[in-house]
Each structure stands twice: as C-alpha cells, then as structure tokens.
C-alpha cells in the first residue's frame, strides 16, 4: 500500500492502494467514478478509456503510480453538463444500444477530435479501432463523430 495524489477531473484526490493497482480499479472501487468500464483488462476493448493529459489511454493497463502528476479526465469530467459536442452528437444520433462501451467510445472520440478536428473516415477508423462495441453501433459512432466535428 502507498499514498497517491491524483488529479482527476480537475480535483485532487488521495488514495492508499497497492502501487500496481490499475487506475481503472482506483476510479471504480475507490473513487466511485464508475463511468469508466471494465471490459477485458488487457487493453483490447477500450471500455476503460480515459484521458491522461489529453491523450486517450486504457486505464486497465495504467498502474496508479504512473497516473501521479498527470491530469486525468474520465467520462464524468468530460463536460460539466453532458454537453461536450461529442456527447451531444451521441444523443442526436441515438448511438447507444446496451450502452456499456459508450463511455470508452466517447472518450476515444473526444481525444481524436481534440487532436484532429476534421478527421477522415480512415482517421476515425484508426483512432476508434481499439474500442469494441459488441452491439455493433459502429456506423452511428462514425456519424456522430462527424457531426461533433462540425460543432466543435
């Protein structure tokens, strides 16, 4: 066990956990930020995607010790009122089915648009390929990213 000082969604937080604990489980079990999801635990599905200093990162493979000193943003902190252009576009296209993968999809999409405001289809495919949607909402995700890119 060790003390870690974290900056999450603009707030500083202290936790006392094993240094190898992935950020995912610190968020979910210790800080009650359960929007970030567990899907595979091996960086293969994208359900656990968060932003680490603005980059999309799989939190299931990020030891807590590596998150210290960085700005962590989770789905809960992406926008104040759920009105980030990506979130708004998600509602406009009514993207989710079961909804489980969607926080991860939104975080990947938001990071993509922050770096590349007008991505091509190929850019979208490349940036989003690490996010599995078992319900198969890929076409709506792509359409929503394009809508969001118009409204940044």
């Amino acid at each position, binding site marked *: 066990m060790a003390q870690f000082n974290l900056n999450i969604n603009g707030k500083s937080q202290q936790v006392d956990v094993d240094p190898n604990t992935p950020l995912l489980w610190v968020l979910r079990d210790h800080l009650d930020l359960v929007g970030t*999801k567990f899907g595979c635990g091996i960086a293969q599905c994208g359900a656990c995607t968060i932003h680490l200093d603005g980059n999309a990162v799989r939190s299931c493979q990020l030891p807590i010790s590596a998150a210290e000193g960085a700005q962590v943003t989770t789905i809960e902190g992406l926008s104040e009122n759920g009105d980030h252009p990506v979130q708004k576009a998600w509602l406009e296209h009514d993207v989710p089915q079961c909804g489980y993968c969607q926080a991860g999809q939104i975080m990947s999409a938001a990071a993509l648009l922050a770096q590349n405001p007008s991505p091509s289809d190929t850019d979208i495919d490349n940036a989003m390929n690490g996010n599995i949607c078992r319900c198969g909402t890929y076409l709506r995700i792509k359409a929503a990213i394009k809508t969001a890119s118009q409204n940044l």
Partner: protein
Amino acid sequence: MTTVNTKMNRRSFLKASALAGGGMMLSFAWLAGCKPTEEEMMGLPKEWFELNSYIKIGENGAVTLYSPNPEFGSNVKTSMPMILAEELDTDWKHVFVEQADFYPERFDRQFTGGSQGIRQGWTPLRTAGATARAMLVSAAAQSWNVPASEITTNAGQIEHKASGNKAHYGEMASLAATLEVPEEVTLKEIKNFNIIGTSKKNVDGQKIITGKPLFAIDHKVEGMKYAALVMPPAFGMQLKSFDKSSVMGMSGIIDAFPISLFKEDYARNFFDTTTFPEVVAIVGNSTWEVMQAKKNLTAEWEKAPETTFPMAGRGGGTSTAVVPAGLENTNRHKARMAEYIQKPGNVVRRDGDPEGMFNKAAKVLERTYTAPFLAHNTMEPMNCFANVKGDKAIIYGPTQAPEFISGTIAQALGIPKENIQINLARMGGGFGRRAYSHHMTEAALISQKIQAPVKMVYTREDDMSAGVYRPTYSATYRAALDENNNLLAFHVKAGGIPETPLHANRFPAGAIDHYLAEAWDIPSNITIGAFRAPRSNFIAGAEQSFLDELAEEMGKDPIEFRLELLKRAETNPVGERNDYEPKRYAGVLELVRDKSNWTSQQSNVSRGVSAYFCHNSYVAEVVDTVIKDNQPVVESVYAAVDCGIVVNPDAARNMGEGAIVDGIGNAFFGELTFENGAPTKRNFDKYRMIRHKEAPKKIEVHFVENNEDPTGLGEPLFPPVFAALANSLYKATGKRYYEQPFAPQLEMENLKM
C-alpha cells in the same frame, strides 16, 4: 375499433397499496441523475396516484411509466413505455420511465429473449394504457356530471366540449385512482397513433453518455465486499481441493471458500444451465485484490465422472439429464460431425417421395456447411450484487430471465422465494447469455456465507471460458435436378454438438413436392444455450447459401428463384405445417430488390442476397462487397424487414444495424475452439471481434409498412447476413464459403483480413 377485456391481464391492475409489504422500489433516478431540460421537466409532483402496475400520475400531470422487461440494449425500456403512453394518450414530454423490479404479482412475463418483448407486451401494455385513460375519463365524467362518452382526451388533457370543461390528467388522477377498473376498454385505432411509429430517443441516453451508474457492475453500498470466482480449468473437470492459505495472506483478502449452486435433489429448470456448479469464491476489499488472489490460488482439479441430475419438465414431472465425462477437442468434434453426416438422421419431415426422386435425378447438388462454437462476449462481463442477511435477500444483477432464477436462488439459499427481491439492472449486452443467471446464485451464496453485501465480478477470461455457448453445427443440403435443371426434390440433414439446428417446417419446406428433413445430435459436456436467434443463426446461412448455389446451377436469378418457390408455397403449399406466410416472405425480397437496385447492379461491386423468417418476422438482405487493396470490404448492406408495426423506428433501425454488424463479425471471425476441454481463446487478444474498420460502410434498414401487430426485431436481422455475405464473397472471389468463420479461407485466397 378494438375493445379488449381487461380481465386477461388483471394482475397488472393490482395496486401496490393492496400488497402487504410490497417490495416495489421507486428510484426516481431521473432526479438524482442528469438534469432534464425544462421542456422535459415539469417538476416533481407532491403526490403520485397509481392507476395500475404500469402507470402513476402526479397531481401536476407528470406521468411515470414502468417498463416491465429487463433492458439489454434492445430499447424495450423506451419502446414498451411508448406503447403505454400511446393508449394513455399522454404527452411523451411528461413521461418519466422507470425500470420495474422483478415483481411477478404485478407484471406478466418479465423476460427479455426470443425477440418477444414487444410482441407479447403489445396487447397487455395497450390495455394497461387504455384502462388508465378510461379511469381518468370516468373521473372527469363524475366531477363534471357529464356522460363519459362525450369526453375526449389529447396529450394528457381531458375535455368536455359541450360544457366547456377542461382539465389535465393530474387534476383527475386522485379520483381516478379510487375507481373500479373497467371490465372492458377501447383501444385506439392504429391510424390515430401519434407516439407509436415516431422515433423517440433512448430514455437512458443522457445517463449513458455521462457515465452514470446504470449497470449492476456499477453498484455499491456501504460495507460492500468484492468477490471473484476460481473455476475448473476445462469442461469435464471439477474441484478436488484447494488451499485457502495460498491467498489468505494477500493484501485485502478476507475469505475463500467453495460454493455449490444446486442442492442434490433440486430439479433444475431449462435456464439453470451452469458451466461449473461448484467453484471457489474469493472475497476481499476490492476488485483488483480479489483478481490478484485468483491468480495465486492453489487448487487441485480432477476429471469429472459422468453426472446426472433431475430436470424439471415444462409441464411438471422430472427427467434425468446426463452430462458425459471427458475432455473434448475441436478436432475430434469435427471428425465426429463428419461421421454423422454420412449416417442417416432422424426423419423430422418427409413430403412426397424424396428418395425416389433422388434415384431418378439427372444431377444431384450436395453441399455441407459448418460453423463453430461461439462465445457471447457481452461487453459487461457476468457479475452480480447480492445482500443476504438472515432469511432475506436482495439481488441486483443483469438477467434476461428473473423468473427462472428466483426459484434456483431460493433452493440454493434455503430461504423462501417471497423473501428474495430481484432488482433488474440495465445489462451491458445479453444476446441470450443472461437468460442463464447462475451468476445471481453465485453472488447470493457468497453474500449468505459472509452475511454482508457483495459484488461478484467475472474477469473477461472467466466470462469467455466458462460460457453457455452457441453450439457447433453442420448441415448437408442436397437438391435433385432433372436433365432440364428442374428441381425435383430437396433434402436437408442437420445436426450439431449437442443439438440440431434444424427447423424442418420453414422455407423451402412447403414449396417443393418431394422434401426430406433429418436431424442428429452428439452429446457433449460443453454448456450451450440461447445465442441471438438460436439455431436460425446457423441454419439460415447454410440454407440461403445453398439456395444461391442451386439458383446458379439452375441458371436463375437468386431473388427470382426464391420468389418462384414462394409463389408455389402460397398458391399450392405442400404439407400443412409450414410455419411462414409466403406472401410476407416474398414481400421483403421484393422490397430489398427495389431498395438495393438489384436489377441495375454496378459492375465493381459483388452482391449477395439472402432471406429468412424467424421470431415471427421476415427479413431479406443484400450485401455488397468490393476487394480494396487486397482486402474484402463490406460496402453496403440493404435490409428489408417485415415485423409488423414498428414502435420506435430509429431505435429499430439501430437494432437492425447492430444485428447486421454482429452477423458480419461472426461470419468473418467468430470461433471458439477447445483443447482438452479448455477453450483456446480467453480474451479479446485471441477471440477476434468485429471492430470499426471491418464494419460495413453503409447500412440501410427498410421496414414494410403494414398494420400487423408487431413481431420480433432483435434477432431476425442476424441470421440472414451470414449467407448474404457468403454469396457476395463468392461473386468477389469465385469461391464458395462453406465453413465459418470465413476469414481463414479468405486468407488462403491471399486476401488480407
């Protein structure tokens, strides 16, 4: 005008107040969660008046509708309340939707599966809405002293034109709630629908996109512990012993013990399928700590002998189920299936003289199709929260079938069923997997042992390797042709491990004079269960690939050929047990021909067509592929669907798109194999799932417009894709694809996958 008797679903009209100690949980999640816009939000009423199990109205006119069925992504939580709202004649903007808990005294059929939610909910929900409306009208008639028949309603407003009286529903709710439930109510005419048939957004959309806790895996209460399971490493193995001390010193670990899901004399039901009835549970202070301990646990496993257990029959009585011993291998499965293909099967249907016709045939076309086991791989792994204290239990988890697990939990815990409250979580996918809710029993047993609330979570590896899989199947089709290429007879022989996929009375049965259908199966200890469109999800692909090849052999256009057969089945059907309507079947083929511009095909795309009937709905699909940079790319998919009235069109299209993506993914990549009883793929690094790049570039879902009562939608678009894709890939590569998944064979054609 349709009048319905309300007696048929009387229990939906029981009021909560009439129930002693009723366990209804009102969560008002919309208040704590997202901020509704002003338009949506008319303020919390001071008091709610319950009109029946589904409907409460506040004094200010706000309406709460309970969605009875568990939600796994098929939109029932939005679509079912839309049906209530339609007949209640309220304004959708005034509606708050709540997930009903499992409450069999108040709701019928709280089951999600078989694409039957809307179909079976249609009349009960319409009746419940119309009944509440009738009671509000009666209340107004009493208050204003006018005849009820002169009163009209519109969007939550009640009016008596002649006297100039007007009120909103909230003003009449308290009186209405005290009135007798009418014996008979009148349903709206379909042409007057103004909610059904208009697209409404997912009622949980805002919560999903802001990461609110919606799923059982997100649940947490004060003092809750975390648990993980350690399961036998392979099918055919069982626990011999384990060493508790191997984990007890580890950080955050509180306890480790074995749990057994079934008492010896318990007669299991159809949905009690459980991969491993005895497992080791590890309990600790956090998910990560119990997952670490899992890796450290030393246990001895042994080969399980053949086992038997009592199975409850559907109509009472019990039979004995047998689970064979042995460690199974995919190679051996394939070899045994090949043997069975050569042997006669059990004849399930015979029309005319098929054997005689095959003997006389000038030509016989024979093809065999196979498909592997598939894992469901819901994105949310199996998990459950349970809080068992003394003889009371609260279970909150992802389940498609709460009714079927409640008795199982009761026997495992040894407490009465009435003391077990099951609350329904939104599910991170289901696809049939969560019809088998052993995870609820597992969590309940753990909580009972530690007498504290617990959340039990499977790792992805547990979820994938202890599955209730789609079986492996094989189907052999034969067609007898005369010297002029006329079709004389048709033969299908289909089987699998451990069940046959045959639907003997579906198309083309009924369209061919001489027809033979045979089935076979091979027992196994690998657990199998419902997987999106069970059996159809394989047999459709086999049948529709074969019909494509047969049409080619006969020199016919594949759509034209199917339409000819359907014309025959319509005008002069063979046999009496055909379970499809040829006209509606033909209707979707005609619609897809039109929407895909089938007759004016572009030369650079390769198209395949397929059509299928299941879950009371008809679907035809056209898939267009191109080879780009040496890679097969699915450019477009056109689907034509006849599922009767479509309640929520945009959400219905979403579901259709998802089923198509799912089908293409499984056709290309889906495969689970076994070595010495153990699945060789345990996570997404090895089990290939369709991803963004492989999804079709465009999908169009078109609905046949008619006034038929709604039928299934979640499953029917899935089965036909396999063949539409295979037939299209044939055009693109010149090779037929008989074996799923297709990717390894495409790679043999030097294509990149």
